[in-house]
Every structure is written in structure tokens, then in C-alpha cells.
């Protein structure tokens, strides 16, 4: 086998599983270390550079980082990465104005129109304002925030946090036009903007066309529209018995909001078994903690109307044959009528672009959504860009933020008449963390502590109003223990083959047997020789050049390493060193510096 090329930033980036999994590539271990040192403001700012909304995301992020966390591979639960982000946001200095990007007073003369004041558009503006662009944001509603404001209930995301983080961007000098829906793309284009960004989300909740739908309309609600109506206080109550159709994260918000608007019993009706739910585990847990009943294997058949009023729903009871996690057959075993006062449909959402004329030269695909380039986020009409849920359908906030970063680069390239596909590479810097003979500037001692449990407001206090935040955040003690659970995956084990004297010290001290020295051969030979078998082939395998004395090679299975640094501590020649990997991801500003 040829030696691994660790100069490619992807190699070490992949080792930092959380950062690799995060769409915006937040440097998680670094901010956790900053929290550990009490530098909450630094941790916050560092988060903000990647994910723009740390306070918001620290509460409601979909957290792709946590399932990826290395900690979970030592037979434990992942580090509470998301909630630590909230710790940074909660405890930072209240005034961070001197840490925010400087906005030049002299503009570059380019005007950008952004449609929708949601997370995608705000990220684009956040990236372009410091470069000198003039950004105009058009928002149909009376307040900015998009889905973050309308679809996420305030008992999960307090308005104060939302307003504060949105204001950091709108205060950059954006021309924010509220109550200003865009009804014609053609007219907007005629206004002569240098580029247009569409960040209108996926605003159309899916319909369930069953018998009785129209007759019962007064008590049948579309989930996201209903949540929006609640957020703007148009809807203030709901019936005693509520059925939620669907088990996505919107369904979880709907059922918990219902409880706060006066519902006594809320049932979430699921068509399939639990393994097929779309909602995140933690959102399901939070709903169940509030005594929401989740009913599986019930497929909606019709709405029951009596005297012109909804009184219940009939469901088909279904049994499934499941093989290897896939449904291979289903059988209806019966029917049941479930009485209710209201039904909320939360079965998905679509993007909708009725306001974009089809004759302006923009190509639409067979689902009637614009064709968007996956790298540049440009539509087939040059100068018009899409991001967030508007680009490729419903995802989540953190993806919308990353789309915003990438679209901002494209808009900048477009306005400078540069090739949109000519993008800068990710840069990597490695710096040793050796402090003394056996001292490292990171906490390398493995802490077997279990994940800290988030404290919640007591159930008796929770339903009094809509705005009581359920999660209390970590206490100082909890945060202090939770940060120590981070394995510091960004402190990389860097091997210099020319220094190795083959004393075996690293192999013997490694607590996970992730190192092996073996004669070189093909991949099959090498895998056979590994001290601990390779169980995760998605994780990188490091292979060194042939060693001086015996011509053997050093092999490291990155899957198992816990970054304790003992190999480097026991290495007499510093052939192993612990080095911090710092990745620099290009942003719009990178291209202009």
C-alpha cells in the first residue's frame, strides 16, 4: 500500500467527525475547549463564524454532529454538542458589537435583492455586507426570521434569542422591507439588482385529500400554517382532543403547542412503526415527556363529520412485514374511529414558486421547482440564486446556513465577473500541542463520565403559556463535566515515519489497539494484521511510509482512536505528535482579501 496523503485537508477533517458532519463545518472541539476555559464569548464568536446563529442553533439545531460523535463509538452516548453551543450563547458577554464583522462605509456599488428574511437570506447578507454589498431583504411577514420565527414555538426558542441574533445581521445596514411580499420575479428583475437570492423556504404544507376534508375545514389545520398563525397570535386556542397526522419534527412542535393552547389529550397518529419516524429521537422524547401519545400503524382513511362539524377520524389499522429495515408487505387488519375536536396535518412541506414567471428563462424541473446548481446555487438564469429549503426542498437551519455561505461566494464571484465554479480550496494548518515533556495544551485524560441530562421546567409549570422555555440550559457544573467528555478529535495524531525507532511503545500503550506495525502488503494483508479488526470502513485508515529499521509500516485505524495522546507521550523520538488541525473554509470575504 502507498502511504496515506495527509496533506489533503480532507484526511484530518474527516477525523473530526462532528466538524465533518456539520454542513457549516463548525469547529466543535475548539469551541468546547473555549467553553472549558471559560471563554464563552470567544466560543460564541467562533461558532458564529461558521453557523451564524449559535443561540438559535444551540436550542433547535438538527445536530448532525451528535450521531457522528466519536464518543458514541466508545459504547457511550455522544457529547451534548448542541447544548454546549447554547452554554456559549447564554454566558457570553451581552455586548459583542466589537467582535462582529466590520461593515465598510464605502460600498462596492453592487446591489443584491434577497427574497425572504429567513436563515438562508440572512446568512447571505451576513457574508456579503462586510465585503461592501448593499443588500435589500424582502419579507412577506411583519417580522424577519422566516421559519425560525413562524414554525419553531417559543417554548423551544425564546423570541429574545431570535431577535438578538437576527438583529446582529439586520443592524449591518441591510435595507429590510417587511410586509413586502414579492409577487413577480419579472418585476423584481426589472429593478436592476446585480443579483437576486431566493430564500423563501418551503412554505407550502402538504394537503391530505380524504373524504370530509372540505366539510371539516374549520377544524382541520395545515401544520406549518397553523404554527405561523400561533406565532403571530392569530390562533390562541384549540379543541380538547387533538390529532396530529405525521411524525416529523413539525408534528412534534404541533402537538406540544396544542398542549399549551388548551388541549387535554393529544395523539400523534403515525402510519408506520417507530423505526420509520422522521422526527429526531430527542424531539420524540420531549413530546412523550409531556404525555403526548404516539400511536403507530394507523393510516388515515377519512374525516368524520357530524352536523357539519369534525368529530373524529377513521384510521386503517395496518401491520407491516419488515425485512432488513425495509417494509416488504403491509396488511390492513381493521378500522378504528378516533374521536377528536381538531386535526393538524404535519405530513411534509413543499416549495412553491407561483410568483416566478415561467417565461423569464429559468428552467424548472418535472416537479416544477427551479433547476439549481449544487455547487454554485445558481439557477439557469444567471444572477438568480437559490438557497435553504427553496433550493433543494426541506432540510434544516444548519443546511440553509451553509447554502447561504456558498451562495454568497457565488454572488460575489458573479458580481465580479469571475467563474462561479472557480472556488477556493479548504486550507489546513497543523500546530503541535506539546507544552513540555509530557504535557499537552489540551485535556487528554479520558473522562468516563456519562452525558449530562438537560434539566427541564416541571410539567406543572410548562403549559401555562406558550413562551416558557422548557429547557433550562446546563448549569455551570453540568457544562464543566460535559466539556470534559469531548475527545478532542481535532488534536490529531501526526506520524513522522523517519523519526520512528520501532520501539513498540505506542502500540503497547494505545488503549484502543488502533495502531499496528506490520510488513507492507495489499489492503487485504494489512486488514488481516490489524490488532483490532476494522469495523467501520467509512473511517480513514492511516498508512505510513516504510520504517527505517525493519521496513514495516505503521497503520492506524482512525475509527478507534480516542485522541488521548498516549502514543505521543510514550514516543521517545516525537515520531507521534499531537497537533491541532485548524481548517479555514472560504467565505465571500476570503475571495476579496
Amino acid at each position, binding site marked *: 500500500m502507498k502511504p496515506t496523503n495527509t496533506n489533503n485537508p480532507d484526511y484530518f477533517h474527516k477525523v473530526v467527525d462532528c466538524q465533518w458532519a456539520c454542513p457549516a463545518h463548525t469547529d466543535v472541539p475548539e469551541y468546547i475547549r473555549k467553553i472549558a476555559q471559560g471563554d464563552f464569548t470567544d466560543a460564541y464568536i467562533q461558532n458564529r463564524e461558521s453557523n451564524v446563529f449559535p443561540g438559535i442553533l444551540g436550542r433547535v439545531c438538527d445536530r448532525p454532529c451528535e450521531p457522528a460523535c466519536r464518543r458514541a463509538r466508545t459504547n457511550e452516548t455522544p457529547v451534548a454538542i448542541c447544548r454546549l453551543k447554547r452554554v456559549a450563547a447564554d454566558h457570553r458577554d451581552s455586548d459583542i458589537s466589537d467582535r462582529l464583522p466590520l461593515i465598510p462605509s464605502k460600498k462596492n456599488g453592487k446591489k443584491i435583492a434577497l427574497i425572504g428574511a429567513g436563515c438562508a437570506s440572512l446568512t447571505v447578507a451576513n457574508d456579503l455586507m462586510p465585503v461592501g454589498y448593499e443588500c435589500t431583504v424582502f419579507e412577506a411577514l411583519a417580522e424577519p426570521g422566516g421559519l425560525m420565527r413562524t414554525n419553531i414555538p417559543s417554548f423551544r426558542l425564546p423570541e429574545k434569542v431570535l431577535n438578538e441574533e437576527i438583529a446582529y445581521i439586520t443592524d449591518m445596514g441591510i435595507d429590510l422591507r417587511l410586509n413586502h411580499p414579492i409577487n413577480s420575479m419579472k418585476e423584481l428583475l426589472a429593478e436592476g439588482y446585480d443579483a437576486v437570492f431566493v430564500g423563501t423556504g418551503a412554505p407550502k404544507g402538504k394537503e391530505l385529500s380524504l373524504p370530509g376534508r372540505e366539510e371539516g375545514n374549520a377544524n382541520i389545520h395545515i401544520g406549518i400554517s397553523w404554527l405561523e398563525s400561533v406565532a403571530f397570535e392569530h390562533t390562541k386556542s384549540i379543541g380538547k382532543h387533538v390529532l396530529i397526522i405525521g411524525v416529523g419534527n413539525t408534528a412534534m412542535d404541533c402537538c406540544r403547542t396544542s398542549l399549551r393552547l388548551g388541549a387535554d389529550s393529544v395523539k400523534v397518529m403515525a402510519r408506520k412503526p417507530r423505526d420509520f419516524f422522521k422526527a429526531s429521537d430527542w424531539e420524540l422524547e420531549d413530546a412523550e415527556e409531556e404525555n403526548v401519545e404516539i400511536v403507530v400503524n394507523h393510516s388515515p382513511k377519512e374525516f368524520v363529520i357530524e352536523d357539519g362539524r369534525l368529530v373524529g377520524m377513521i384510521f386503517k389499522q395496518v401491520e407491516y412485514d419488515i425485512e432488513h429495515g425495509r417494509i416488504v408487505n403491509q396488511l390492513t387488519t381493521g378500522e378504528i374511529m378516533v374521536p377528536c375536536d381538531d386535526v393538524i396535518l404535519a405530513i411534509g412541506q413543499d416549495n412553491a414558486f407561483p410568483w416566478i414567471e415561467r417565461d423569464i428563462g429559468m428552467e424548472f424541473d418535472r416537479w416544477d421547482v427551479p433547476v439549481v446548481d449544487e455547487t454554485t446555487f445558481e439557477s439557469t438564469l444567471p444572477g438568480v440564486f437559490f438557497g435553504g429549503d427553496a433550493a433543494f426542498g426541506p432540510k434544516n437551519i444548519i443546511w440553509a446556513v451553509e447554502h447561504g455561505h456558498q451562495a454568497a461566494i457565488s454572488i460575489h464571484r458573479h458580481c465580479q465577473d469571475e467563474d462561479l465554479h472557480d472556488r477556493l480550496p479548504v486550507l489546513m494548518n497543523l500546530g503541535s500541542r506539546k507544552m513540555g515533556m509530557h504535557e499537552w495544551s489540551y485535556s487528554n485524560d*479520558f473522562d468516563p463520565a456519562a452525558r449530562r441530562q438537560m434539566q427541564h421546567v416541571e410539567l406543572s409549570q410548562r403549559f401555562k403559556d406558550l413562551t416558557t422555555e422548557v429547557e433550562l440550559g446546563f448549569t455551570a457544573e453540568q457544562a464543566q463535566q460535559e466539556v470534559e467528555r469531548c475527545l478532542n478529535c481535532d488534536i490529531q495524531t501526526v506520524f513522522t515515519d523517519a523519526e520512528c525507532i520501532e520501539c513498540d511503545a505506542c502500540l503497547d*500503550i494505545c488503549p484502543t489497539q488502533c495502531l499496528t506495525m506490520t510488513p507492507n502488503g495489499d489492503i487485504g494483508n494489512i486488514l488481516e494484521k490489524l490488532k483490532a479488526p476494522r469495523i467501520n470502513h467509512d473511517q480513514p485508515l492511516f498508512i505510513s511510509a516504510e520504517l527505517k529499521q525493519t521496513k514495516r509500516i505503521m497503520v492506524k485505524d482512525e475509527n478507534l482512536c480516542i485522541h488521548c495522546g498516549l502514543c505521543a507521550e*510514550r514516543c521517545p523520538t516525537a515520531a507521534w505528535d499531537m497537533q491541532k488541525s485548524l481548517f479555514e473554509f472560504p467565505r465571500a470575504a476570503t475571495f476579496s482579501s
Partner: protein
Amino acid sequence: MSFIRKPKIDLPSERQNEIGLLKRDYEGGLSTLCAGCGHDSITAAIVQAFWELSIPPEKVIKLSGIGCSSKTPAYFMSGAHGFNSVHGRMPSVATGAQAGNRDLICIGVSGDGDSLSIGFGQFGHAVRRNLNMLYIIENNGVYGLTKGQFSAAADKGSRAKRGDINQWKNIDPVSTAISMGSSFVARSFSGDREQLVTLLKAGIMHPGCAILDVVSPCVTFNNHLGSTKSYTYTRDHYHPASQTDFVPHANEIRASYEEGESIIVELHDGSKLLLKKTDSGYDATNRSSVMRYLEQQRARGEVVTGLLYINAELPEMHKIYRTSETAMKDLEYEQLNPGSEALAKLQAGMR
């Protein structure tokens, strides 16, 4: 050394041995030896050998004298009995422990200073009595603990770290042990894990005094150009005289081998040692030819390794002394101390 303890991580792939123990159950305390010390490597090999043999740690006594080498019993098998004795006096204490409880598996860890200088006499008598133990000499050619003076094992003409040339002829524990009538003599290298583990297993199971001289480079004081005990020198002059396979009693010998090119030695518990000759004509059971061979190779400057001499038939200490088959600690008080009447009778018989 390192400053944090090796964390205990549950690995999905970790295997248990026949008695349900993990390899980490055979580990010991945090090593305070220099990073890269050969001794730590030997410690890891000992852990592996005992784990593979499925020996319960509480059935083992580990003994040592003084020196870097003699610190190492603290770094393996925390669950075993242990005695860190006086400089060079490990064999005496081992003899006492063996006399008191012959059921314990006895492993002595000593160094070139401990065994070839201050404890040279003790070493000789352990060999002569064929004390049933594995006697490891972690041999680095220097006094590491006192900053790198030549030990008695340093080769004549080798160079110290500060530049001095050694003028004294070395004491070779291998040829010394053979000439004193040892029943098992082997040499290995801390950097050859595979061979070392096999020889450790053979030595543990050998019914008698198994002398295992292990070249174990001192990274701090004896791993430079001009040293004859460095990683580089040892690898450059490495010469395995035989290849040993240890076959536990339950298993059959499956490996095919050329007739006349291999010797099978059966140990008392039914386990077997399969010695494959790598140098043709080398016979590890023929004492005089072994001595001749070692002298020949020494003149060539080779570091000869492998199981160099074995005689599994030589009676060990308990057999020579015709002591009780039952370990002394298991005898009833009345048997150990039959009373004044029995003493009087014994004395009367001697008058």
C-alpha cells in the same frame, strides 16, 4: 513515561481468554520508565503471554530486585502477588516463595546490573537449583537508573553515550547459564514481540529455571551510534538461531515441517515446543554443540536469539529436595508442626 493512566475503553472487538479475562485485566500500574524503554515493551509481551495462556493473575508471583528492570513487575498483572526485594537478591526471595507455595507460577524480573553484578552469585544458584521459575534479564548494557555507566553486560569496545569505550569483557548470561547447567536458556529482543511472547510462554510452562535474556535498549543512555544494545545495532545484527512454536497441550501440532529440521520438546503438562532450525545443524538439546555455536556467532558479532538450549528432563528444586507434593501453605498445622514428641523421636533416630 506518560502522566495519565491508560484509560479503560470498552472495545467491541475485545476478546476474552479461556477464563473470561480481557487482556487489560493483566495490565498493571502506570509505567514511570522513559518513553520508548524496551522494558515497557517486555511488560506488554508478558501481559500478552499470560493472557494467552489464560493463567489467573492470583496464581502468579512476580519478583524483582533493584533497577529500572526491577520496577517493571509493578506494570503488569496488578492482581498477582509481588515482592520487590533487595538489590540482586530476587532469586533468594523467589526460592523462599517457591518453597512455601510451589503452586504459584513464579516470574522473576531482573536486569543486567541486578543479575550480572551485585546478584551474580544469586543468579548462579537459582540456575544450579533449577528453581521452577521464569527468570527474565532485561538487558540494556547500562546502569540506566544511575545515568548510564557500563554494566557487566556491556560488550568490550562498545561506546557509552558520553564517548567512553568499554575496556572490560562482558558477562554473557546465556553462555554462563548453560555452563552452569541450566535447563532452559533463551535470548530475545524487546523489539521482536512475536518471538518474545512465544519464548515467555515456553519459559512460563517449562518445569525448571527458564533463563530469558532480553536485549532491551535503554533509549535514554544506550541507544546511540557505537552502542551494541541499541535498537538499530540489535536489528542489524539480529540472528534467530531457531524458531519456536509453543503448542498448548490441548492442541495438536498442525504445522508441517521438514523431517530432521525440527525438534519437538514435550513439557510436563503435555504442551509442546516445536523448534524449527533456521541454521542447519543447530540442535538446542545438545549442550556442547550449542556452546560451540554460540562462541562461533559471538566472534562474528551476531546477536543470536531464540530458544538456545533446553533440557526439560532436568529435575527442578522440589524434585531434588523430595519435598511434599502439596504446597506448604496447604498443609495442616499438625503436619507442619507435628509437636515435641515427633521432634524427640526424630532426634532420637539421629543419636
